[in-house]
């Protein structure tokens, strides 16, 4: 490590004022603080600081995302080989490798575009590079359909980072969840590529790996897509991409079609466990999203009608299908865009759960509502906090007028 430190010290002048590469100062500083905890000591205020910093917090979220990421890769491969009809003769590692090759370009595009903009912005404002995008950059590949063309992803990332984050002042200042803005941008700009039968299952080869002719039984509709298209008084049995029947258990394990990171409830729960154990995410938000989803699921199921076929799904299945659980664990818990007071967090989370299921069930246009629910509540989070804080303010005013009377 000594040699690396010496090397970094040696190249340091090149990157600072007067050096040849002074334009890359923020990149250099970012690298240096990444590699070595800075020796800077406190100048004012407290003399000791906790070891916890933003890098640690953000990397904890990355760790929590890894199960979803690894399983997502496997599942992309699984769906691919199911579509080709050769899943039975294909090992899990081949499937995972296919998924890795399919997802790698998306991850790279997401990070290169997003971090590139962050670096430029940090350089312009002479600020340190912020860690926020490390998480966003991984969330995006997990929530966009695997067949999204890379150029679309690149545009969506650029749009989201610039217009949802940098214009507001960067990490910590944004109003809307950046990853979801990217997703929403894709969803509304290129609707044909974002839903339907062709979005969620990669049937072509990934970087020359896999590929082949699709089997006759193939249908790429996600379970929620199938539910939305349901006709008749009862819910038709759901099937996977090869036409085999599936149930809630498959959704729980995650071997169904969908965005890479969102299918497996098991992996999402592992991530939730990590986030809650380390205290990085708020259990108040996470718990109340699930509570809200369950409550709305029960209500919808109790008033089930063939007009809204999704109301015929039972409440627990509602939580397992689609992006609901992923949104509850990784999107709603974003502290920057969510409610920040304890009371507010209960309300905020509960309403996300309710609205997600509400959109899913009663809005024919969108088979999935979690994304829109989180974005909508992002907009209302400051209002919720305002009301909660107002209670404190009123208490203070009341106290003052009471003592004034005495």
């Amino acid at each position, binding site marked *: 490590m000594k040699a690396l430190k010496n090397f970094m010290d040696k190249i340091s002048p090149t990157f600072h004022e007067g050096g040849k590469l002074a334009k890359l100062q923020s990149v250099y500083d970012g690298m240096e603080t990444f*590699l070595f905890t800075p020796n800077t*000591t406190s100048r004012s205020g407290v*003399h000791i600081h906790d070891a916890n910093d933003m890098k640690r917090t953000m990397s904890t979220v990355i760790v929590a995302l890894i199960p979803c990421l690894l399983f997502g890769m496997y599942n992309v491969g699984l769906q691919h080989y199911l579509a080709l009809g050769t899943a039975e003769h294909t090992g899990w590692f081949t499937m995972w490798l296919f998924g890795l090759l399919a997802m790698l370009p998306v991850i790279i595009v997401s990070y290169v575009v997003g971090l590139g903009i962050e670096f430029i912005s940090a350089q312009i404002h002479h600020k340190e590079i912020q860690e926020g995008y490390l998480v966003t950059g991984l969330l995006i590949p997990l929530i966009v359909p695997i067949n999204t063309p890379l150029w679309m992803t690149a545009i969506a990332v650029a749009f989201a980072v610039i217009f949802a984050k940098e214009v507001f002042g960067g990490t910590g200042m944004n109003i809307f969840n950046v990853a979801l803005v990217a997703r929403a941008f894709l969803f509304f700009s290129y609707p044909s590529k974002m839903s339907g039968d062709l979005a969620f299952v990669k049937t072509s080869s990934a970087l020359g790996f896999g590929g082949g002719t699709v089997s006759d039984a193939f249908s790429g509709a996600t379970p929620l897509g199938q539910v939305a298209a349901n006709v008749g008084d009862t819910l038709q049995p759901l099937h996977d991409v090869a036409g085999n029947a599936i149930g809630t258990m498959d959704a729980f394990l995650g071997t169904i079609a969908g965005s890479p990171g969102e299918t497996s409830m098991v992996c999402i729960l592992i991530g939730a466990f990590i986030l809650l154990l380390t205290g990085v995410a708020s259990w108040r938000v996470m718990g109340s999203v699930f509570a809200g989803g369950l409550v709305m699921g029960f209500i919808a199921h109790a008033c089930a009608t063939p007009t809204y076929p999704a109301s015929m799904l039972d409440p627990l299945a509602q939580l397992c299908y689609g992006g609901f659980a992923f949104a509850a664990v990784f999107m709603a818990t974003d502290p920057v865009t969510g409610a920040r007071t304890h009371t507010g967090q209960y309300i905020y989370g509960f309403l996300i759960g309710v609205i997600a299921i509400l959109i899913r069930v009663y809005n024919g246009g969108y088979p999935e509502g979690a994304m829109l629910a989180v974005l909508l509540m992002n907009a209302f989070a400051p209002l919720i906090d305002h009301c909660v804080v107002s209670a404190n303010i009123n208490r203070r005013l009341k106290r*003052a007028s009471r003592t004034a009377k005495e």
Partner: protein
Amino acid sequence: MSTFKLKKGYNLNLQGGITTSTVATAPAPRQCAVVPDDFYGVIPRLDKKAGETVAAGEPLYHDKTHEAIKVVSPVSGVVKAVNRGDRRKIESIVIECDGSTGVIRHDPGADAKATLLESGLWAMMRQRPYDIVPNPDVVPRDIFVTCFDSAPLAPSLTTVLGDKQQYINKGVEVLSSLTSGKVYMGCRPDEVIEAPGAETNTFEGPHPAGNVGVQINNVKPVNKGETVWALDVVTLARIGELFTTGTVSFDTLVAVDGSEVVTPQYVKATMGCPVADLVAGNIADDNGKTKRYISGNVLTGTQVDAATGFLRAPYRQLTVIPEVDHPDEFMGWASLSPKKFSIYRDFTGWLLGRNKKAVKMDARIQGGERAIVMSGEYDRMLPMDIYAEFLIKAIIAFDIDKMEQLGIYEVAPEDFALAEYADTSKLELQRIVREGLDKMRKEVE
């Protein structure tokens, strides 16, 4: 008497606590210093110039607006230097001691307020709002006395105090005559101090339970337009002594501790004495690693120079910690080592119960300054009915109405010290609060 159970906050268990009961004595100081920054809110107008002689207890300077507020010399001798910084701000006044023990006498029977102002003890009190030396024109609603210091490695105030119950009684009697309300004392459940005429409350819970601001907020919060005074029990006893014997005691007991002190111990010393006198021969020598000398505790204290620095108010603690204990730590943010101390659970120490052990911490910030991202971090560290994070944001935005509504009159920078320690975004909360209070005062007055 009521008991308040405070849940928020945290007791940082640092290495270098005092275990011995022996009390060392510092040599008679050759120089002492008074630092105007210690008496916040007083704008100094010098009464003594360099070269003039001064007796112990004689005023060195007075306040520009309220001329009655005096800050006095703790020793007798000659004013050696008046050190000035930017814009001729007085940074310190150094007095060359002449070794005599005579102290200015006051008439204990005279007007309490005038005597307090003249004796210099007035300047050792604080008022809420604004956390400044009290304005003598305002009669306080109540007076709050904290009887314990809950900060890391802080001295036990009952030890610093010694056996001075009769002075405490007298002090309460004097202070009661200066307020329209009551004198409240805040104690730990195991060190209850009571005095006739004062209401004693006990506070259970971690730091900052000993902060007088926290106690005020829980007992009887400060409303807009109200003023309360705040002081510690040691100052209370000094006030009692003044009105009993007619003299102010400038002796103090200093807790000299921290991981870099060989034998952490109490040292008998004089207010404003040189730091070097307190630690002579008692500092660990590990190949000349830089150390940080803090007059006060690690959260609210001031860094002082080991060779030329002086003990600062409230004159009762000196902490010595390493400056950089672990230079060029490789990817410290990714560390899985249980030795890395954090109060958060995203480090591994808590899994092995390491967080209960005493820990050695250095002065590194351990991260870069960021916008506020994590929610609820400040609130967890502040046992007050205040939305700390919203207040900080209002101060940063300098939204006067919001600051007032969210309770800026009730807080002092020290109340945010623990939150500043715990802040993932590494913001300088105490500085922010201080600036907010200053701007607010300017705006209101």
